[in-house]
């Protein structure tokens, strides 16, 4: 029976292999059915050891057997930490001229945890596991939507990615879909790590004059389609951010929370190795705090676009929950007054909150004929963006824990923020380097201002300053009729952080592409921001894909 079952696969494999080279087979169907996809391997190797010291102190680690050691657990230089194999199948059915159905199914398996069992142990020691959030393997109907285009309308209904904005590499107006940071931070193509959401995207465009286009986005919070924050790596994995352990450690080191390392020895000490990353406890709390599926948790967006005298402009408004949570302000009170019997784990779903924010912004782009460059920009004003306090505990936390003072609330901070990006794109010929193709050169400056900044607040992706400035530069070209595609992307934050991503891709035939690259991270030891806890995560990576 088992032998016969395997033989059953043969005709299906034959059909699959023959169909992938002849999509004409599907034109006989009612409409035009197109099935494509790819098989891909992404692999990465670390170039540095994980952090063994934090703030100049030896890292203490509590392993699962209760032993505390000064040796760093975790990742080391040369660790083959990523071996992700992905199969993605895309189906596009053009049922009529105005009706398309589109779907993507994706499955993946990361073999790194099998290749090196220590990686799995790292996660277990940190309180998580490879099964969390489908970290090692998963499959899903990634996207599935109906695209209806009658006249000047576009209705796109289903699970989809909705992308706004003009920025590359960093998010400002591209805020509708969360990102999956879990397996390679935000380095992969965002088409692959943007998390599709169930929603409705309606556009109405006037094709003449200024080409006004009105867009309305509704992400219903009901029907199992609720809010999703960015997906972070589970604790103990290579890309766990380390934010919370550093957040708490910073507070303790700076004397803001005296005695808290005594009060929560198991929890805090388990977080003192930044390599094992974010406290799993807080990770679970953040997940448990995600709002329930309910229509009242809908996120709504509107955008109006137009063309004026060579400028493409748009204004938008997106009412949504902030992807980064803040504490419930009475979390410590609940803990001490016995919610859940004083057991920290019993009210994980009441520890954090994802606050509603309103983001209003605008974008523009224009082609300038003298410089032959495209200039683009966007800005976002966020009303009452939530920020965590620098001290996660109330001021009298130790006294109230000892019953010598009534417990107090903590104070989150809600500040208006303003962020903008200005960028340029300039394809430039350097015939002595490449006479057939230009070099695409693209630069950007980002700035974010926290208005009325308070020294008692902290941020998750900034360097604790009231203004963040960063620059990016992208250069790419193609050689040998675009069979060799080198590229470099660089980012520099004025606080002393940086990231360089050189890579080269090779194309062989119509179906095979492979490439190699590196992520070189630079971080100021005093600052956290995007790479603070991961500044030793430099890696080289490679990919091989067969796409049909």
């Amino acid at each position, binding site marked *: 029976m088992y032998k016969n079952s395997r033989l059953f696969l043969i005709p299906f494999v034959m059909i699959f292999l023959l169909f992938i080279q002849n999509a004409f087979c599907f034109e006989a169907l009612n409409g035009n059915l197109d099935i*494509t996809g790819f098989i891909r391997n992404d692999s990465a190797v670390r170039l540095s050891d994980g952090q063994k010291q934090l703030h100049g102190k030896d890292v203490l680690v509590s392993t699962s057997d209760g032993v505390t050691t000064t040796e760093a657990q975790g990742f080391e230089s040369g660790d083959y930490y990523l071996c992700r194999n992905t199969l993605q199948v895309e189906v596009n059915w053009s049922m009529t001229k105005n009706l398309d159905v589109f779907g993507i199914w994706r499955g993946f398996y990361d073999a790194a945890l099998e290749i090196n069992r220590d990686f799995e142990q790292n996660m277990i020691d940190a309180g998580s596991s490879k099964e969390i959030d489908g970290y090692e393997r998963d499959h899903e109907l990634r996207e599935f939507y109906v695209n209806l285009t009658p006249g000047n309308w576009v209705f796109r209904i289903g699970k989809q990615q909705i992308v706004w904005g003009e920025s590359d590499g960093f998010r400002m107006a591209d805020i509708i879909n969360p990102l999956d940071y879990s397996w390679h931070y935000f380095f992969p193509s965002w088409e692959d790590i943007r998390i599709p959401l169930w929603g409705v995207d309606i556009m109405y465009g006037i094709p003449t004059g200024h080409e006004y286009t009105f867009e309305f986005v509704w992400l219903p919070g009901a029907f199992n389609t609720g809010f999703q924050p960015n997906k972070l790596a589970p604790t103990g994995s290579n890309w766990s951010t380390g934010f919370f352990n550093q957040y708490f450690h910073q507070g303790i080191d700076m004397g803001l929370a005296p005695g808290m390392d005594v009060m929560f020895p198991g929890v805090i000490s388990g977080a003192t190795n930044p390599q094992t990353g974010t406290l799993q406890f807080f990770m679970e709390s953040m997940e448990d705090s995600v709002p329930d599926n309910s229509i009242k948790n809908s996120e709504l967006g509107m955008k109006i676009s137009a063309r004026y005298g060579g400028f493409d402009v748009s204004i938008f408004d997106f009412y949504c929950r902030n992807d980064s949570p803040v504490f419930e302000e009475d979390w410590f009170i609940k803990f001490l007054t016995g919610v859940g019997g004083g057991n920290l784990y019993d009210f994980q779903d009441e520890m954090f909150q994802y606050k509603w924010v309103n983001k209003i912004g605008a974008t523009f782009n224009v082609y300038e004929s003298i410089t032959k460059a495209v200039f683009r920009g966007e800005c976002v004003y966020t009303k009452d963006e939530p920020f965590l306090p620098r001290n996660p505990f109330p001021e009298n936390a130790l006294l109230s824990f000892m019953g010598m003072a009534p417990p107090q609330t903590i104070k989150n901070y809600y500040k208006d923020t303003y962020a903008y990006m200005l960028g340029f794109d300039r394809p430039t010929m350097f015939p002595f380097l490449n006479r057939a193709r230009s070099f695409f050169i693209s630069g950007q400056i980002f700035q974010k201002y926290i208005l009325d900044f308070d020294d008692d607040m902290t941020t998750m992706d900034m360097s604790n300053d009231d203004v963040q400035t960063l620059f990016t530069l992208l250069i790419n070209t193609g050689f040998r009729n675009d069979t060799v595609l080198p590229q470099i992307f660089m980012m520099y934050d004025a606080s002393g952080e940086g990231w360089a991503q050189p890579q080269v891709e090779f194309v062989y*035939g119509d179906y095979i592409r492979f490439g190699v690259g590196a992520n070189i991270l630079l971080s100021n030891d005093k600052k956290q921001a995007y790479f603070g806890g991961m500044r030793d995560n430099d890696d080289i990576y490679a990919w091989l894909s067969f796409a049909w």
Partner: protein
Amino acid sequence: MMKFKISVIGTALLALCCFFSQFIYSSPVYAKEPKVLMVVNKENVEEVKHLLPPTLYTRVKEWGLSFNVVPTVSDFVPIKEYLDATKKYEGQCKVGPDGGLLNYMAGCPFPNPKTAQEIVWNFHETYTGDDRYYPMFTGYIVDNKGHVRTNKSHTSKLKYIGRVKLPPLPEIPNKEGIEFKDMTMQHFPNVVKGLGVLTIRYKASGREDDMWIYLPAMRRIRRMSTAQRGDTFGGSDTTWDDYHQYSGKIERNTYKMVGKQEILHVMHAEEGKLPNMQGVFCQGGNYEKVPVYVIESTSKDPNYVYSKRRWYVNPMTWNILYQDVYDRQGRLWKSISERMVINGDYFYNNCFEVIDYQTKHATFWCCPGYQKDLNQPQSDYTIKALKAFAR
């Protein structure tokens, strides 16, 4: 067990039918073969050297191209509406000081051209439909080892001026002064599937094109710089300006009349038939002797990718049948040739060949299924449409 065997055999037969269907689907339509006057090959090419552009001569003499010479058939007459418009507006067009076309309404701007510039404007305004659509524009990119990559797209164009058949005539009213809009969507390979490019060309000489590209990997639209028009795309040997022999703004070049002569060229290729690609050139074909104007085009931009082009323009169709392209050092670099299909009152190119003589690399763009005058809506040529068509 018997049922299992039947299902395996049945499924295998179905798969084989699907595999072979590609050959049935793409089988050419064979027309009656014309009388062959001469077969040109490397042994006798000297007899017709004076009728061959230099690069075509090279292909015969050194690469082994051979082809038939058949009687010339001058059977093309543009549609009546185009001829009527030519007559109606005859004499009112002028070439402006910056090379732009002034007072153009519709039809052939210069039925009796006197200068190279006027001939080039005739090429630009020759009738190929008030709108047109190539449903499967396939590029075969061949390297010097014979390896082939494929690029598939569909492309369409909507004319805003010079309209002769589809109302409104002679132009679609608009404040922006649009000349035409062009939309190209890529289907293959997978990495560019869903990539779309929208181009808007303006009448005003000094106004550059507006171009947008939808990038599937980013899931968003990007504004493009027209500095990229000298770039090749999709790994091919074709720049954005090389499309349809020359798709850039006419005013960006200066033109010199070299002379008039006759050349041998494919004027009646079989509709839908793919050429016989043999390495980096197309073997065979039926070539007719046709008159051409020889014009040299030089870009006003000193940094342009080409130093000059030599065009062979046929006065029957006003199409550029053949061109030789020179690099910035003045060396012969490429040839671009169109295998024409003439069908009554319209023509199009069934396949155009772009051959790089320096790297022995070529791209063959095959364009079966050409359609025109479909009354396409303006809404199909907007940024919104670019996003709606893509994933």
